[in-house]
């Protein structure tokens, strides 16, 4: 049962996320997730290095002025 801990994670998380996942699906999802988690953990470790401490995610957005919300007086 090489994937048993991942399968358990998949089954539990799916259950608590209201994601219907029958047994056959659990195995298929676990097989992919196990590989991706390993790589994602490695990337997370890399991004936790001190040299990246000031890096923000690229999903930040630029706010624009809504008419009437900003005073134009000097």
């Amino acid at each position: 049962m090489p994937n048993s801990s991942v399968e358990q994670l998949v089954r539990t998380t799916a259950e608590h996320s209201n994601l219907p996942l029958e047994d056959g699906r659990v195995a298929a999802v676990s097989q992919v997730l196990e590989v991706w988690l390993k790589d994602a953990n490695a990337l997370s470790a890399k991004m936790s290095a001190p040299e990246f401490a000031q890096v923000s995610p690229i999903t930040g957005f630029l706010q624009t002025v809504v008419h009437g919300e900003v005073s134009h007086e000097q």
Partner: protein
Amino acid sequence: MSSELARLSIATAAKLVRSGEVSPTDLLNASLQEIERHNSTLRAFISVTEETARKAATAAELLLSAGYDLGPLHGIPLGIKDNVGIQGQRTTAGSKVLGNWHPDKDATVIAKLKQAGSVFVGKTNMHEFAWGGTSANPHYGHVRNPWDTSKFPAGSSGGSGAAVAAGLCFGALGTDTGGSIRLPSAINGVVGLRPTYGRVSNSGIIPLAWSMDTAGPMTRTVEDCALMFNAIAGPDPTDPATSPVPVDDYLSRLSSGVRGLRIGVVPRYFFSHLQADVKRAVEQALQTFEGLGAQLVEVDIKHIEGNISAQLTIESAEPSAYHQKSLRERPGDYGDDVRTLLEVGELLLATHYLQAQRYRSVLRAEFIEAFKEVDVFVCPTLPFTATALGATTVVIENGVEEDMLSAIMQFTGVPSLTGLPSLNVPCGFDSSGLPVGMQIIGAPFSESKLFSVGHAFQSATDFHTKSPNLGSN
């Protein structure tokens, strides 16, 4: 004669329409005849909209005869990827999930192409919801590669790539999140542009991953790609991600050449894990550029490793958010592979997603810094040529089988994550006669430069003039 007409470039067809030598209906008939001959094999189109196309072609003729010339796309038959909404036409995104959905308005890119006088011959087949790189579609049939119908056409815009390569339409619209325009362009031997993120509106296009989605043209020549891009680029108030940066005339610098151009190469990453034929073709392309007066500059992108994981994390979490309701209510309507990916995307941690988005900031900053030293980067579009239809693994080196999804996005993920524009240009063939493509990657909003580099290459080579031989299938 019909086949020859169907294989003309858009630029040539447009001149013939203006001179009155052929009509938009002639062009449409030529495309429809090729679709009739080859679509049952290629499965490049999910739907062929002959009736509305004939009305559009007739309208284009009436406008021209009345003196109204809408430009070089006036009366040109195009294919539209089936995740792009056209008012009143069934849009499936390659899935059963949307059922018999007919959008009540045009996507912004469709409205723009209509304003330019284009004629839509049909909706092209694709990987379901664009979430995959093979265009192996369990609902509408696997798209086949016109160069060898036992091979895949890549994806997700596989139908658009196969249709353009086989002459079923003069150009097509694709969408690209992790490589879905560039991959099928490379594998089918056509030109395809992933624009700068925010340069083309996504309004009315079914999303895959909001923070990486783009739409762009797929054509047989770089000039045609610029022609189509002229029609679709620009800001859109209905898509807040579009940029207000003014658009260029993307044809204006087409012939400016590459003399003095600094081409960045990253040998450590882009030339280190790929099939020998692909490496040889792209290295020869670099020699061609040098012969034209360009200078090669070796560059190292320190943190380029990690991009595949970042891409898979983002490209799985965002679609899973979009599909969350349907995945719970009708999971059986998804194909098995896409369903699995959507389920995986639900189970990654929020921290994984955010670390991947932070990684994008790092990677983008490194490329922006590198553009102080180089004008463009050139690299392979993908590390292998067309593989067997339906394959889920691929061999790149030393007989080792690799997962298709990770392998196919090995080189296209970099522009996707950084939001940089990237143009695929055909640059050779492997020993089996299958096309090889290279990416020309530029700084943000440098599409004009990419077109001039690609056009210089096509002016010096003839790879783009070769056509697949489909016989009388």
